[in-house]
């Protein structure tokens, strides 16, 4: 029986033609806006966190507490040093410690000067292996650095091409912080723009040209047994606190799995995304009010019909069901159209952004639970918007209604 009420409801919607459409446009614009903004937000998130080259789950990232925003180690209160490194290496369960430095240097070629990020290859071979394993460095021309190289650099893909007037070729010399280095390799174009614009050089050289003494920006710790990573983390924390004479709650460092460090970024991006989606959500609210308006008008127009139905045995609940079905249907159709439009917009925007900002990969994932939720949500919105009009319809006195 309920099904027939629903088919009656859909007939009514069809018969009101343009007005049903105008009402649904409101809903689908609102849903499209929210869906597209949230999807684009997620795409942006994947692009940004993708930059932080996800490391495997068997590695921990060790940094000192930062006071500001910037690449790891840049705003650290104390720099990590050899003492820290040696201490960590000795901890049970730690396999290899990879020392990382991330700085900025002046880069000159063909009399053109610019500033670029530079990072180190660790001194020890097994650290180098871990690093190469963790960060997928793929060589396009030439070769990667090894533990014996001095005075040589590998450049990110952005350095190919003639931004410097002349193309930089293998074997050529570039001037970094005033010293000459030979270019022995170029990386393939990666999806992270930090990799594309980076200079990789041997650690000893980097320390020399920037006069870096005993400090590291971060340490990557590879554990022996992936399943014991939690325990190793705890042990490390205790050892460092002991060493630095800190009490609980006074930690001036952080040991995170790569996942956790990405989460921090995500939290910030999430809040931004929510605020923006919230503003978009206001349009949904407005659309819902539109449904209420349409339903009230519908009740007015169909007073007589409601009277007839009551005279042939319709209960109040039947009338309410009928009107709720109508408003929910309006919500549903609007919602489905909105989801489709919203996704299309998001895909289009992501495509445009990816090609315009080469190097950033805006992936829009089809998050089905979310999409289904969006569609269902609009049904609910439709339903709720129709409640008051439906109740009003059911309260009509059949005699008066017939008189209309």
């Amino acid at each position, binding site marked *: *029986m309920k099904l*027939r*009420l629903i088919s*009656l409801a859909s*007939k*009514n919607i069809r*018969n009101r033609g343009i007005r049903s459409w105008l009402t649904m446009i409101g809903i689908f614009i609102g849903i499209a806006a929210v869906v597209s903004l949230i999807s684009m937000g997620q795409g942006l998130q994947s692009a940004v966190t993708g930059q932080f080259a996800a490391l495997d789950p068997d590695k921990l990232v060790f940094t000192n507490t930062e006071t500001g925003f910037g690449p790891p180690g840049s705003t650290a209160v104390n720099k990590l040093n050899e003492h820290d490194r040696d201490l960590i290496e000795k901890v049970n369960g730690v396999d290899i410690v990879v020392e990382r430095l991330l700085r900025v240097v002046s880069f000159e070629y063909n009399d053109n000067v610019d500033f670029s990020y530079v990072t180190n290859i660790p001194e020890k071979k097994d650290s180098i292996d871990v690093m190469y394993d963790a960060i997928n460095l793929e060589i396009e021309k030439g070769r990667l650095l090894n533990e014996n190289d001095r005075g040589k650099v590998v450049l990110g893909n952005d350095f190919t091409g003639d931004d410097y007037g002349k193309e930089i070729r293998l074997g050529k010399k570039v001037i970094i912080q005033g010293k000459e280095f030979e270019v022995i390799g170029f990386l393939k174009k990666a999806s992270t723009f930090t990799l594309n614009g980076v200079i990789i050089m041997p650690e000893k050289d980097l320390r020399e040209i920037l006069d870096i003494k005993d400090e590291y920006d971060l340490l990557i710790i590879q554990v022996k047994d992936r399943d014991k990573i939690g325990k190793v983390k705890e042990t490390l924390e205790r050892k460092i606190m002991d060493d630095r004479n800190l009490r609980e709650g006074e930690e001036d460092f952080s040991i995170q799995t790569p996942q956790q460090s990405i989460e921090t970024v995500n939290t910030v991006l999430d809040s931004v995304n929510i605020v923006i989606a919230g503003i978009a959500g206001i349009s949904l609210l407005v659309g819902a009010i539109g449904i209420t308006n349409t339903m009230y008008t519908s009740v007015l127009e169909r007073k*007589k*019909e409601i*009277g*007839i*139905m*009551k*005279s*042939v*045995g*319709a*209960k*109040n*609940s*039947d009338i309410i069901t009928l009107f709720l079905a109508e408003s929910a249907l309006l919500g549903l159709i609007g919602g489905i159209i909105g989801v489709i439009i919203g996704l299309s917009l998001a895909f289009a925007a992501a495509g445009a952004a990816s090609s315009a900002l080469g190097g950033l990969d805006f992936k829009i994932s089809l998050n089905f639970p979310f999409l289904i939720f969006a569609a269902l949500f609009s049904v609910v919105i439709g339903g709720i918007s129709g409640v008051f009009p439906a109740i009003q319809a059911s309260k009509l*006195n*059949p*005699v008066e209604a*017939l008189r209309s």
Partner: protein
Amino acid sequence: MPGKQRTLIQLKNVKKHYFMGDNMVKAVDGITLEIKEKEFVSIMGPSGSGKSTAMNLVGSLDIPTSGKIFLDGQDIALFTESELAQLRGRKIGFIFQSFNLIPNLTAKENVMIPMTFQDQSREFSEAKAEELLELVELGDRMEHFTNQLSGGQQQRVAIARALANDPDVILADEPTGNLDTKTGELVMDFLQKLNNEGKTIIMVTHDPELAKEHSDKIYWLKDGKIEKITKGK
């Protein structure tokens, strides 16, 4: 009117007053009547006599200001509106002067609606509707929309609809009011046939000839009260 008949509808000193602005209108001002099984009853009166209001009360479509109405022995004041609607849907079939079919539905769908509200299955409703439409000789117009039908055809659909739940009582409010003479006769013949088959018919009309021709009993209304009761044919 042979044998012992059950009382189907009873009104005891029923009054219906309502306000139009500051004035109180006594539409029905103390009516007592009894409708028994298998009767053909007419409620007569000039316009303003309260017969339409009376019909609404007899049909349990309206609640009295004072007095009691009994439908099948039960006091309708004790029912909730929903319960009353259900009961009414089973016991009484309405035929209105202006047909009151639901627009945008086909003839068949209109006839099926009362059964929908009594929770009948789709197969059952559809079969019954077709049967009823055949009965009123509209078998070939079942899928037509109401705005595609003539006045007479619409009224016949209304009759079919009124019969949908096999009610004990058919309430017809000026059933021939909007029809030409010939079609009107057809409709009245049909109502007569229903009465012969055992259905109770209550008809409201302003046409005394019509009333005398078909009814067993005629209630004459004036100013909201029963002026006299006469026998019909």
